[in-house]
């Protein structure tokens, strides 16, 4: 009986309100404080944009959440569970995903293999010495994802042969694999053409509602189309938080944003 209650309780905690809670999280590199005393909560299914000039600490924030570069102080909770001391791959297995500002792909492998590995990464059979069959479930999801990001024609191409825009699409496909609950997109629109940008917005808007994300995006137009709330970072700290309208009309933000040359 007790055990049942316990598991029900822990389930409640896990499926709690917040997908992400950061508690006074800081990160320094040597003497450089890249990010200081960040307190941030993101609700399950929430879609958040993070704005801020270059060097504001946005990517550092993502690295702290995923464990790529763990925080030097503070706690990180994912879906109610403290993951501060967990390695990256354990955080990912709990439903976290990310993309990278500069594509990190497997250039020696084919497009399908890249996405297949992403699908396999969060399921069993990572060590299988057999070749995956076409009807393998991870292989099937990989094929589906490839069509979601419009790369079906490039399925058997080496990643090294893809255009910049296609590599950005693949970058996104890798983050959509499995059953993500919170995805961190690091400037997914960087270097995309206008038509590729609208494709990206389409992909983001068509994502199932229960999947939340945080998107770093310089382009206000893109950010405001795909986010319900906005966090503005400056000099490694949170500068403003609010709804897109509040942030857009905030005089301080306007000054900062226009001043730093973005718009």
């Amino acid at each position: 009986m007790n055990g049942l209650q316990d598991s029900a309780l822990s389930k409640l905690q896990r499926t709690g309100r917040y997908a992400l809670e950061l508690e006074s999280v800081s990160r320094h590199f040597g003497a450089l404080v890249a990010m200081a005393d960040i307190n941030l909560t993101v609700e399950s299914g929430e879609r958040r944009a993070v704005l801020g000039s270059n060097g504001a600490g946005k990517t550092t924030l993502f690295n702290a959440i995923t464990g790529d570069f763990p925080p030097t102080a503070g706690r990180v909770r994912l879906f109610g569970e403290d993951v501060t001391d967990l390695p990256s791959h354990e955080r990912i297995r709990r439903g976290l995903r990310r993309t990278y500002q500069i594509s990190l792909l497997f250039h020696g492998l084919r497009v399908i293999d890249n996405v297949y590995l992403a699908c396999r990464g969060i399921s069993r059979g990572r060590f299988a010495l057999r070749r995956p069959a076409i009807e393998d479930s991870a292989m099937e999801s990989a094929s589906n994802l490839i069509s979601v990001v419009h790369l079906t024609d490039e399925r058997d191409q080496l990643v090294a042969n893809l255009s910049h825009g296609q590599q950005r699409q693949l970058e996104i496909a890798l983050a959509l694999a499995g059953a993500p609950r919170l995805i961190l997109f690091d400037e997914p629109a960087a270097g995309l053409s206008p038509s590729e940008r609208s494709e990206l917005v389409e992909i983001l808007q068509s994502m199932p509602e229960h999947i939340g994300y945080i998107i770093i995006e310089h382009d206000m137009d893109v950010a405001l189309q795909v986010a319900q709330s906005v966090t503005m970072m400056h000099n490694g700290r949170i500068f403003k938080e609010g709804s897109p309208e509040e942030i857009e009309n905030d005089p301080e933000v306007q000054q900062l944003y226009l001043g730093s040359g973005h718009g």
Partner: protein
Amino acid sequence: MKTQHGISEQLLAKGSPSLWLLLAFLLIYPAISNDFFTFQIGAYSLILGTISLSLMMLAGYGGMVSLAQLTVAGLAGYLMAIFGENSVGVMGFGWPWWVTSVWAIFLAALFSAFIGAISVRTEGIYTIMITLAIAVAFYFFVRQNYVLFNGWTGYAGIEPPTILGIYWRNPVPFYFLSLAVAALFCGAVVYCSRSTFGLALQAIRDNPRRMRSLGYNVALHRVIAYFLSGIIAATAGVLLVWFNGRISPGSVSVGVVIDILVIAVLGGLRHPIGPFIGAIAFVLLENFAIDLIDRERFNTVIGLVFLLVVLYSPDGLLGLWGKIRMRMMNSGKTGPNETRGEIGSKSADSIETS
């Protein structure tokens, strides 16, 4: 068109005429050569090639250049003497050959996994240095330890079994035994390179950080790769100790450890067939260069050949062959072949830098 497959893979693709030709040649080879060529050249090349294959698998697919592969093979050889039979009167539990060999291979593979666990958090040159240190430490350990390894003398009288009335150390049977082992592992590596594990290993080579953020335990994957490559090296080690009939610290000295690296790089790290090409070249040089120059100069010759290959063809003799073929094809037609060559060299770079 699958652009990933390099020239060697096209040549050796399943059912291709050149693969059948190669197999046919390997099968009739003992019939057209004498005992010396069957045993000292043929079987020996196959064994050295198999040990280098274990390095090719780690370095080519995993980006981990381990210098301790011969040490793993050597440990398996020692374990054969310790648990099986030897003529020295030290250890020699006299277990049946098949129990001994399975046990020796398993323990040596565990040792390989242990080496992996130690070196797995290092990259590039540091991996080479740590594994070299392990190889050197192993050499001095077996030289000084008399209880287990019989020190300087080592073991002699280690023989393959007689099964089905065949004495397996006779040149022809031993050649076929070595060929079977080499073909088995070569095929297994080719097959597994497209398996989930193999793809993951190559992805870890290309980008370990990304693999972590896809949910992979990169360190564990690497350690398992070391274990699997240890099975290959150890099996070849059992053959090597049967081939020599004896094992001593000299069998696992730094010189021999480096030979394996030379063979793998000489042949090429891009395809499992490379180490065997390197081994044949190495064994031929070792046997016939001394007819032309004296023994002491042999290392100079090997060194020079190594240098030339590394300078002019980072993909080894295999890459050289690919280049020549490409040039011949390009003089006929142009276009897609050119791009394919570029792809090849690009991923070769990624092997070296990672």
